[in-house]
Structure formats: C-alpha cells, structure tokens
C-alpha cells in the first residue's frame, strides 16, 4: 500500500469526444467542424463524399468552439493553407493550417487568448480581429501576439444573445447586437473619438418577440436575417449597414419552425435556418419554404454551413451528427405526383383497386369488372379484359419483381381467382378455389425460379398456387400445390407471404397479427416422413372447420411455427427475408426482426418507427444494405429511413385504407393510389434513397444517463485497419494487436446504443441501437460476458447479457453478440436479441385483476441497476433496481434471461433510491457472500446480504404483507449516514481488511470507509438457516468540498487510488490509504451534466480508459 516517493501519479488525457457540433465552416473544399475544443477537418469531393482528415486537438482549452473565421486571403488561395481564428466562450486562438496534396498539417498556433467577456462574433480586419463581446462592447485585438488594441463599449451595456460584425476595416466596422430587450442595436465602434468612451447606438430595431439567437448579413443584396426565440426568422432590408442612419425595413416574417430558431444563414438565392425542432429549412428571400431537411435528433441543430458553389448545406446537431444536404431550389426535381386521368366516357365504372407491375405499369380494376393497364411509356390507358364475375368485389395484386413478371392476379367474392399475363390477357387462367369470398391475395417469389400465389378463402384456408410459364412465354400454367390452414380468429385470413431462403419454408403474416411458418412443399416433407407433425398441427388448428372440409382431397397444412399476435389486433402488413433474418411489419407501428432457428420462428428485436407512424406497411432493403420503412403517417404515405431518421418521401395520399401499391426498382420508385376516382402516381427517380450524406452518425438525441463497458475485442495484425484510417502519428500503445472496447450507453432519448471504441484511432462507431423502451432509459447492467463460440474459438468476438431499465418502471433484458464484419467501417457487427421485458404497472394490473386490489401506478422510475451473479451460475442472476418510489426491488432472471420475475421489494429508504451497487465477499472456507449496497436522496447507505435469497426457507426474505404482493426483504445488515443529501455515485473494492466503500454526493462531498465483513462460523448456524454476516465500519473519512457540484462518477482503482467525476466538469484523482483522501490532480473535461462514469484497464501498454457520459460522451485514458 505504501507508495514510493517517486511514484508517478496518473494524469488523464482526453482521447475521444462526442459532443454537440457547435461550429461549422466550409473553407475551399474542406469542412471545419468544431466539437468541444477540437476541430475536425473533413475533405469534400464533388460526389459529396467526405472523409475525415484530421482531428486538431485542444485548440480552446476548456472552452467549446462556437465559430471559425478564416482570414481572407488577398490571393484567394485557400486550397493550400489557411489562417483560421477559432473562438468560443471567452477564448480565441489563431491557427495556421495547410492541406496541400491531401495531407493535413498544422503549421502554427497562437496562444489561447482569454477575453474578459463572452465572444459573440469575430471578424478579421486585415491582420487584427474585431470581437463583439457579451455586454455590448467591441474590442480590436491582435491575435498573433495576444494584445488588446482598442476597447469600445456601447452606452447601453445590456447582455447580448447574438451579434454580427460587418465591415473590413475598423473605420467602417458596424455591429448589429441582439439585446435582451429583443431589439437589434446597430452602432459604430469607430465613432468613439477617445478609446473606451461609450458610443450610443445609431439605430434600434424592434420586431422580434423573443431573444435573437443568430444573424446573417448579405452584403450584395443589403439583406439581414435574424433568427429568434419567438420561432420566427425575419428578413430585413438594410441596404449598406456600414452607412449610418440607413432605413431598416422588415420585408419578411417567416414562421415555419415549430420551436426556437438557433441558426440562420443568408445565401445569394436562399435563406437557410435551423432550430430546436431539428429541422433545417431552406427559404426563398421572399419567405417561401423551398426545402426542409429533417433527420437530426434531439435538441436541435446547432451549427450551419453552406458551400454555395456545390449547393450544399451542412448541419451539425446536438446529437453530435453532421449531415450534408443538397440544395435543389424549388420543389423536388425528379419526383412528382401525376394524375393518370382515368375518368373518361370511354371508361365507365368506378375504380376499385390499383396495383403496380414494376415501377412503370399501373393496373387498375373497376366495379364493372374491367381490368385496365396504364403504361408510363405509352401514356395511355388500355383495356386488358372484362369479366363481370369480378364486378363489385375484386382484389388485384401484381406479381413482385422489377417488371412484376408480367403477371397479375384478381380474386372475387365467389372464390374465383384469375391469373392474368399482362402482355397476353387472353391467356388468363381462371380457377374456382373456394365456395366463398377470397379475403386476400399475396405473392411469394424465390429468385426467378419459383413463383407462388397465395389466396385466402373462408375458414382460414389458404390455397397455394404455383405459377409456371410455357417455354414459348405465351401461356401460363397454374396448379394448386397445397392448402394451408390459419389459426382461428375473427378475421381469419393471411395478409402477406415470402419465401424463407433457401426456399423450404414460407413465412406468412395474418390479419390477427400472427407471423406463421409453413413448409413450402408440405407433400415433400410428408414423403420424407416428417408429415405427421404437420398433420397433427393441422388437426389441432382445424377444430373449428366443418366436416365438409375434411372430405376435400387436399390436406390443409397447419403452420410448423407461429408467433401469435406479434403485431396485435391490427394485423401484420408485410414479411421480408433479408440477411438471415425475417422482418415483419404491422399496423402496431413497429417492425420485428425475427430469426428461424431449428424450424421455429423466434422474435429477435422489436423496432419502432418514427413517431406517429402507426401503420407500418412494408420494409425494403436498398442496394447499399440499408433498410427503408414504408408506412402511413396520418393521411400521408411515408418512406422513412431508420438509419438517417429521415422521411425520404412523403405523399399526401389520404391514408392507407384505400387501394394503393408501391414498387421500387433501381431506376425509380413508384407509389400509386386512388383518389377522387382517379389513379394518382408518385414517382421518384433514383429509387427510395436520397443523395443526402451523413458525415458523422448521431449518437444520442438527449443526455446519456449511464455508460457501461462490456468488454474488449482483440484484433490480431491480420485485421489491421486500412492505411487511410490510420492517424498520422500513432499513439504509444497502438503497436501490437489492436483493441476495440465495446461500450453501452443509454439515454433520455429512450434508446440504448452499443458503441465500438478502438484504441488505435480515437474514433467511435455506433454499432446498433436498441429502442424498446417507451420512456427514458436510466441504467444498464451487463453480465455473462463471453465469446460467441465459446472459449476454444480464437475468432474475435464478444457476447454479453444486458439488462436495461428506466422511466415508467420498465425493464428489458437482451443479449448482444459482436462479431467481425469487414464490410462496415468499424469492421464489427452487433446482433441484438431481445429476451425479456417487465413493467411494474403490468405486474400490478395482473395482481389487481386476480386479487381485486387497487394500487395506483405512481410513475415509478428505475434509477440504477446492479446484477448479482449467484452460485451456481445456472440459477440465473439477481437484478437489484433502485426505484424512485422509495423501493429497492429484486428481480430474478431465469432461463438465460428469457424470464424476468419480481422477487422481492423493500421500502426501507422511504425516499427515492438513487444508487445500487453489488459486490461479493469471499473468505476462505466460506460460501461466497453476495452483498448489495443501496443509497437514497437522504445521503444514507444500506447494506444487504443477498446470498441466501433463493435458498429454501431463507431468512433474507419475509413473506409479503398481503398475498399477491412480492416478498419483503429482511432489514438491512448495516446503514451508514454518509452524506447530507442525495448519493449520486457509489463504488467498492475488496481489500485485505474487507471492502473499501466510496460514495459521492450531490453536496460535492466524498465519503470513504472500510467495511469489515464478519461471517458467523458455520457450526453456529442452527437448523440449516445461515446467519447473516456482521458488517462493521472500520475507518471512515469524509471530504466535504471535493467538488463544486454533484459527484456523479466514482471509481476506486486500487487501495491507494480513486478517481471521481462531477457535474463541475473535473475528473479528479485521490490518494487513499493515508487517512483522509488527498487531492492528486484534476482535469477539466468538456461533457456537461455527466451522469455516469465507467473505468476499466485496457492493457499494460495502453493503461486505463474512462468513459464519461452526460450531454455527450468523452473518453479519457491514463497510464498506470
């Protein structure tokens, strides 16, 4: 324990940051992005592809970058090097950078200059800089040597919320200041005859009803734009601002944002604004919205840049994402809705149904049983056939495939089905399948080899028809292969079908919301001797069928696997097979990822779509491997991208209840629908995707509430990174195998994110997100970390069980598996399998109905989780949850995480419980003891022994107060009043004497003590029941003013070293073991409102890593 005198204490250095992007600027063909105190430099090429060149670290110390000002070069040559002034808060620094020949270099940087007040705007005036400061003053500053040249205040020293400097010399310098009074003050600093004599404002402009957050001046047109708290953007005609006394006229008042507007930028032909609603709007100078860019998440867009020559707008969000958008001017070129003008005297009857064969042929059927074709190349309607049996009720579906195979199918209310070759309608084949109405039709296509048509008739019978074409191509053959039987329900028909690769099974969805698996050739299975099982299934399901059905020659095959009511009562809308998974969509607003394992369907993960889209109609996989979701959002048809959170296409179609069809091919996507008795067709060239580029993926939309490291994946040299991704100067420790840490973050934005943090590149890759929670996620806990194929397998990878919990007393358990995938930038892929979920209110509802007892749901939040692994491990772990209603609840996870059960609860604390932490005590010849520590808002800690909780007749739990309630815990073994108010961090470390326990509180204090565990001798135990251990506090120390705010992260690294993190943005090392903890050093970090910290040793070469999660994520490392 005695540290030698020459011991070098660790010092943390920042390694990686994911913070809101607060500054963006285009310089030639480069983009500068400000993130915290760092600049990210991207190079742009004409395809809109961007590549990160370099991160320039720590330009602004503890300040955050709010803007860049590039020094104008008289020769106009910014392609080789640039002098950039970087400012934010009260800091200013000038840096000279060069980027010739695709290589980035920092040539020189000035000192970091601290101003007396906040810098709202900066402007180069030849070699010096003018700065607009927080209380309405302007200074002239020499940024090279760091010297104040002039300081001119305004007579009105109000607090500003924005400022804009205009002019290229001090003499003509003009400031437009946005004051707290919501006015704009225009004044001229050079009017001060004597230095620092206040200057009166020349003009005061009123108009906005809230504070002005951003301003932009367009000299060529004499326009000024302002963005405000009142959710509007105003355009002012100001003429030349440098001339005093000019007239200011408000020529546009643009309301379009649904929240505060943070940024505005005037371009030659456009006005771009962005705000808290995460929308970037492109306006004309006349105040018309031309384009809207949606996709950022969370609290809005913070930075805006434009590249006028390339017509790009680049936005940086609070979600730390950066996106590039294309300015296209008015409307959407390449896409539009056309009315196909069906109504005509020559075409009587009203349209009943529409479908698309490929993206250029529309088929429609009328209530007089006439089938029409509209060919986009011919641009006219053509009658294909007329069959009066198909009047009044007719289903119409074209076959899938780029050209729809040239086939479509019709069905009527009398059980007739007609398969029509579009080019030779006379060769249509008719079948009489059922004695009653055909409820639905769907196609299933396997490559170009097998084409099936499924038709649902009365009583849940689905006829499976096989369609083959004659070699001549003129005739088609339709044969009934088999019949399937759906499980009984009120609306008993199927809605969709698809082949499960390689093709032995069909996946179907039904109107009752179930997903079913049928053998595609059941007769073949029967021949192989497997038929008995299928028939048994049929018999079980066919109980409701009448005897007449049994007499039919064909057997009705039941499903071999079924996920009942997966999508709820509104039904399944589509099934798609891709990449080894089955995806089903439903009208419950969700889509499921499913897996077929051992001939059985298994749900893997439920995914939600964008808010308000409750009718998910389909899922498509694009050429680049990304999926898009089709759905109806109120009365709009929407194509939505889960990756970019962007509505790629929106069509005002009136909703999904009328007949519609969607088709996408490489050339175009098409959506046809019926409206006002006509067929309307929306087409977009280039398919579903949009050319917008995600420069950097977003992390979380809201604050991170918890961060946990799962494990490390070691990649040997054979998995080396491609050379262009290597940083120019390698960090020490990056030689040898490369290490990738896998970290889980969860957030107020209801999602859980799995991140890969390679040690070599200082970058972060979001592998996947889990969005099962309905409210904020506050805690995650991890256990059972292993490798995918067991310890023998040398292939890199990682598996772990994760339990997450948060608002609305909701808890989820899932399994993650990280494997190698060379196709992704991180070269890792993460597969998530959802295992179990639990909601307290459902638990209570369940009790209530059984016991007739009313317990009101008090909106309980889970604040923290701890996993306690039992002996033997196959019992499954216990999960302790700190709850806001004053309880600590204990759950038992059984069946490798598939069953989550509430075991016991205690209301010992009677106050909101903030933290729980579990640890084990191992003594020789003794059973391993499981201990739990809980801490509440009153600053008290309670220690519990959980070792015997599951033992029969254990004294650890008491029977419930009322039957039906969970059991209650025995009183705690020990309570310690550690702090005066809430405990926000808790950690323990086993030592020789027992356990070192440390806690940090809201009052900024630390409390450290040694906990001794005294176990009663085995033979003392009477009657088999084990006695609880005796806990004592041995040595107790308190540091009252360790931090200036909540201590939210605490980790005991060794018996002599501890690290703490606080909302005051300091990461502090403490020396332990010599009485009171003593301060070693501290580092100022950049993440505000840090809610959690996790620390772990990486390798002897790399040292320790520490992740801080709050309004962003920052990773520090230090050498031991």
């Amino acid at each position, binding site marked *: 324990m005695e540290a030698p005198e020459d011991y070098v204490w660790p010092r943390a250095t920042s390694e990686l940051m994911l913070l809101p992007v607060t500054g963006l600027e285009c310089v030639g063909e480069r983009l500068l992005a400000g993130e915290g105190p760092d600049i990210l430099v991207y190079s742009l090429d004409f395809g809109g592809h961007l590549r990160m060149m370099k991160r320039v670290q720590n330009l602004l110390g503890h300040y955050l970058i709010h803007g860049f000002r590039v020094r104008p070069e008289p020769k106009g040559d910014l392609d080789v090097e640039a002098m950039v002034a970087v400012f934010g808060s009260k800091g200013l620094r000038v840096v000279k950078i060069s980027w010739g020949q695709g290589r980035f270099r920092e040539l020189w940087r000035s000192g970091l200059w601290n101003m007396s007040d906040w810098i709202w705007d900066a402007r180069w005036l030849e070699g010096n800089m003018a700065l607009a400061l927080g209380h309405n003053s302007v200074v002239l500053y020499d940024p090279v040597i760091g010297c104040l040249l002039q300081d001119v205040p305004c007579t009105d*020293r109000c*607090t500003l919320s924005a400022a804009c400097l205009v002019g290229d010399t001090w003499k003509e310098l003009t400031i437009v200041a946005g004051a707290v009074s919501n006015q704009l003050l225009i004044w001229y600093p050079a009017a001060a005859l004597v230095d620092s004599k206040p200057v009166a404002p020349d003009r005061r402009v009123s108009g906005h*009803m809230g504070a002005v957050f951003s301003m932009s001046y367009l000299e060529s047109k004499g326009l000024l734009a302002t963005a405000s708290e009142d959710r509007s953007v105003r355009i002012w005609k100001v003429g030349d601002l440098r001339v005093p006394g000019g007239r200011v006229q408000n020529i546009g008042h643009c*309301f379009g944002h649904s929240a505060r507007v943070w940024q505005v930028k005037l371009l030659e032909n456009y006005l771009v604004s962005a705000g808290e609603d995460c929308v970037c709007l492109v306006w004309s100078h006349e105040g018309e919205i031309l384009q809207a860019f949606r996709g950022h998440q969370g609290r809005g867009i913070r930075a805006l840049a434009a590249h006028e020559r390339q017509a790009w707008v680049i936005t940086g969000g609070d979600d730390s994402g950066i996106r590039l958008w294309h300015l296209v001017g008015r409307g959407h070129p390449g*896409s539009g809705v056309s*009315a196909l003008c069906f109504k005509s005297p020559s075409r009587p009857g009203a349209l009943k149904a529409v479908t698309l064969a490929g993206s250029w042929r529309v088929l429609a059927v009328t209530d007089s049983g006439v089938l029409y074709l509209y060919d986009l190349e011919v*641009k006219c309607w053509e009658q294909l056939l007329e069959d009066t049996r198909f009047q009044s009720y007719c289903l119409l579906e074209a076959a899938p495939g780029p050209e729809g195979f040239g086939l479509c199918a019709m069905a009527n209310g009398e059980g007739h089905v007609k398969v029509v070759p579009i080019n030779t309608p006379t060769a249509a084949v008719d079948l009489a399948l059922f004695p009653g109405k055909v409820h639905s039709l769907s196609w299933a296509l396997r490559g170009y080899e097998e084409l099936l048509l499924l038709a649902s008739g009365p009583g849940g019978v689905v006829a499976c028809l096989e369609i083959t074409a004659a070699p001549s191509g003129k005739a088609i053959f339709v044969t009934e292969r088999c019949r399937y039987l759906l499980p009984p329900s009120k609306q008993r028909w199927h809605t969709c079908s698809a082949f499960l690769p390689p093709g032995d099974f069909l996946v179907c969805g039904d109107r009752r919301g179930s997903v079913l698996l049928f053998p595609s050739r059941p007769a073949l299975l029967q021949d192989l001797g497997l038929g008995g099982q299928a028939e048994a299934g049929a018999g079980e399901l066919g109980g409701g069928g009448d005897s007449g059905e049994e007499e039919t020659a064909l057997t009705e095959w039941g499903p071999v696997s079924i996920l009942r009511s997966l999508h709820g009562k509104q039904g399944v809308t589509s099934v798609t097979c891709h990449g080894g998974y089955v995806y089903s969509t439903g009208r419950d607003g969700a889509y499921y990822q499913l897996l077929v394992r051992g001939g059985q369907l298994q749900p893997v993960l439920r995914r939600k779509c964008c808010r308000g889209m409750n009718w998910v109609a389909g899922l498509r996989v694009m050429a680049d491997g990304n999926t898009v979701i089709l759905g109806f959002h109120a009365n709009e048809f929407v194509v939505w991208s889960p990756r970019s959170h962007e509505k790629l296409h929106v*069509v005002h179609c009136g909703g999904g209840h009328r007949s519609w069809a969607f088709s996408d091919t490489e050339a175009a996507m098409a959506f046809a629908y019926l409206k006002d008795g006509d067929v309307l067709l*929306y087409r977009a060239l280039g398919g579903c995707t949009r050319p917008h580029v995600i420069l950097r993926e977003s992390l979380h939309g809201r604050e991170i509430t918890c961060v946990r490291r799962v494990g490390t994946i070691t990649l040997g040299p054979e998995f080396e990174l491609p050379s262009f991704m290597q940083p120019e100067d390698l960090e020490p420790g990056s030689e040898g195998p490369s290490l990738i840490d896998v970290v889980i973050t969860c957030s107020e934005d209801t999602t859980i994110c799995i991140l890969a943090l390679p040690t070599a590149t200082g970058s972060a890759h979001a592998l996947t997100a889990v969005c099962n929670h309905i409210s904020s996620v506050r805690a995650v806990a991890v256990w059972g970390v292993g490798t995918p194929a067991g310890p023998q397998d040398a292939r890199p990878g990682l598996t772990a069980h994760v339990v997450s919990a948060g608002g609305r007393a909701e808890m989820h358990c899932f399994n993650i598996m990280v494997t190698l995938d060379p196709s992704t930038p991180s070269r890792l892929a993460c597969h998530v399998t959802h295992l179990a979920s639990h909601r307290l209110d459902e638990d209570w509802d369940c009790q209530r109905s059984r016991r007739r007892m009313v317990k009101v749901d008090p909106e309980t939040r889970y604040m923290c989780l701890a996993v306690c692994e039992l002996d033997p491990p196959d019992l499954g772990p216990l999960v302790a949850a700190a709850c806001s209603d004053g309880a600590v609840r204990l759950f038992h996870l059984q069946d490798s995480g598939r069953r989550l059960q509430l075991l016991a609860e205690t209301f010992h604390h009677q106050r909101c419980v903030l933290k729980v932490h579990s640890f084990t005590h191992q003594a020789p010849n003794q059973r391993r003891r499981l201990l739990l520590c809980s801490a509440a808002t009153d600053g008290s800690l309670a220690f519990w022994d959980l070792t015997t909780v599951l033992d029969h007749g254990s004294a650890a739990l008491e029977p419930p107060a009322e039957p039906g309630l969970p059991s209650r815990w025995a009183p705690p073994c020990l309570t310690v009043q550690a702090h005066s108010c809430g405990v926000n961090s808790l950690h323990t470390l086993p030592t020789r004497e027992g356990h070192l326990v440390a806690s940090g509180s809201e009052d900024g204090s630390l409390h450290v003590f040694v906990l001794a565990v005294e176990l009663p001798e085995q033979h003392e135990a009477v009657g088999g029941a084990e006695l609880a251990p005796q806990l004592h506090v041995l040595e107790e120390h308190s540091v009252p003013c360790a931090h200036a705010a909540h201590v939210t992260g605490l980790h005991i690294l060794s018996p002599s070293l501890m690290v703490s993190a606080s909302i005051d943005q300091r990461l502090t090392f403490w020396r332990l073991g010599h009485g009171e903890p003593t301060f070693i050093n501290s580092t100022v970090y950049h993440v505000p409102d840090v809610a959690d910290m996790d620390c772990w040793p990486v390798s002897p070469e790399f040292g320790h890593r520490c992740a801080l999660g709050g309004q962003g994520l920052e990773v520090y490392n230090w050498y031991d």
Partner: protein
Amino acid sequence: MGRTSKDKRDVYYRLAKENGWRARSAFKLLQLNEEFQLFQGVTRAVDLCAAPGSWSQVLSQKIGSPQGSGHVVAVDLQAMAPLPGVLQIQGDITQLSTAKEIIRHFEGCPADLVVCDGAPDVTGLHDVDEYMQAQLLLAALNIATHVLKPGGCFVAKIFRGRDVTLLYSQLRVFFSNVLCAKPRSSRNSSIATEAFAVCQGYDPPEGFLPDLTKPLLDHSYDPDLNQLDGPTRIIVPFVACGDLSSYDSDRSYPLDLEDGSEYKYTPPTQPPISPPYQEACTLKKKGRLAKEIRSQDCPINTVNTLPQPLAAPRRHTLMASEVEDSGMNCSA
C-alpha cells in the same frame, strides 16, 4: 401522457398547485428560510426576476402588509399577474432607473433582503446557459449593491457548473458569509443543477462605488486562489435545507398521499403571460405556418414533367391528347 402524470412524478409541483402557489419554487424559499431565518427582522425585500411570482407570494405572506410593516417590491422584465401586497415594477435590472425606483418605494431606505430566482430560458448548450445564468446573478448582485443595506442578505439561484467557483469568488468580495444551499424541494436529478447562493452580511470592499453603467464581469481563474484544475478552488460550504421528513422531490408518490387526503386534479395556478412563441402557436393552430413545397403541390398534369430518361417518345393517339386537354391537376 395524461394531465396527472406530472402530478405523479413531482409531488412539489402538485402541492404548489394545491396550495395556490404560482410555482413549485415557493417551497424552495420556504425551506431556505427554515434553515437560515432569512425573513427575521426583514421589513423591506426585493424580488428580482419575479415572474411568475411565487417568491413574491411567499415574501408578501411572511413579511408583507397585513402587519403594515413590510414592503415587497417585485421586479421583472415581463408582465406579471398582480399580487396583493406586492409592488410591481416592470423594468430591466441592469438599469439605474430601476434601482432608483426601488429605493423610492422604500422611501429612501435600503432593502434588508434581495432575492433572485431568475433563470434564463435554457438553450441546452451548457456553456451558454451557465454564462447567461452567471450574468443574471451578477446583474442581480450589481443592483443589490445599490439597494441593499450593509449587513443585508442576498439569495440568488446559481447553476453549479464548471465555472461556479468564479461566481463564489465574486460573491465573497461583497459578503462576509457565502454558502451554497439546496432546498430539499429542488430535485437531485434536475437537469439544471441548480442551487442557491445564500450571501449574508453585505460588506462591500472599502471604496467600492456602486455603478450600474458598467456590468459586473465574472472573475477569471486565479493561479493562486482559484485554480482551473488545481487543488485550490473556492468551493463554499454546502447546506441541504428543509426537513428530512418533508416530501422527497425525486420520489414518485401515489396520487393518494399518505396523509389520507384524496387526490383531486388542480389546474395550474397562473399560466404564463404572453410567451415569446405565442404568435407562432396561434399561427400553428390556424394552420398558417409556412409549409414546404411538396412535390404533389406542384401541379403536374401529365407525366411529361418527369425528366428525360423515362419520357418515352410521344404517341399521338386519341387517348393521349385527351389526357392533355383534360387539364386536371392534383393540387386539390
């Protein structure tokens, strides 16, 4: 979420409505008073940034007119619904005229207590919000130097962020005793990590002349006394106030509280008066916000408007011309 969900999550929000307070912050001042006896011997109190007025409500009840001795002046930039026993000034606290008006209402006497519960509308950018809050506190301090009697007390909201030690060092210049206090009705998990600076014993440095024409700027880090990342920092003692047996603001309580009172929904006491976004909301309600031009809003009569690769050579059939003549569009 229903209208009761906030009641379930936040017991003080609910109690404030039930007790007629305009905001839950009333409990914070009451609990601060419990700990520090702020109102003892106070006859003249100033409430800066008073809207919506819950602190003025508390002040008027505790020291206000019923006894005829106390005077409460409430200052805010925004209009506030009137309160009995409270004199309101709608004005800017950075203006000298406001200070003079306060003194005039106290008939030339300085105030015993100045409180400020103001916070700027948070933008979510933490450094900006912390700066703005600090400026508000310093502006409140600046006007307090004009109106506060020596030995008087000043209570203001602070955000305990990165640079809070700079504010502590500034406050220590003017007061003999500075503490950081957190009422139990203020949440632990509150996003803005708010607390209150309780400054007792106003004692300006010798030769200090109050000057409202210059803003008080915050201090900068000092290599000796108040280091950015060193061991020496000015962290003032922290006091948690309020009874431990009082309600826990972080805890979620059932709607039927333990004291047996039956839950009844109470609407908010005082809705906000003319927020800046009022016009935007009105326009939205009427559906008159500017909307982006959607593809289907551009009238396209025929598919000819689709760009070249798809536009096949036109066939002059009767049907095609009929299509063009019909002149239908879909902008309806």
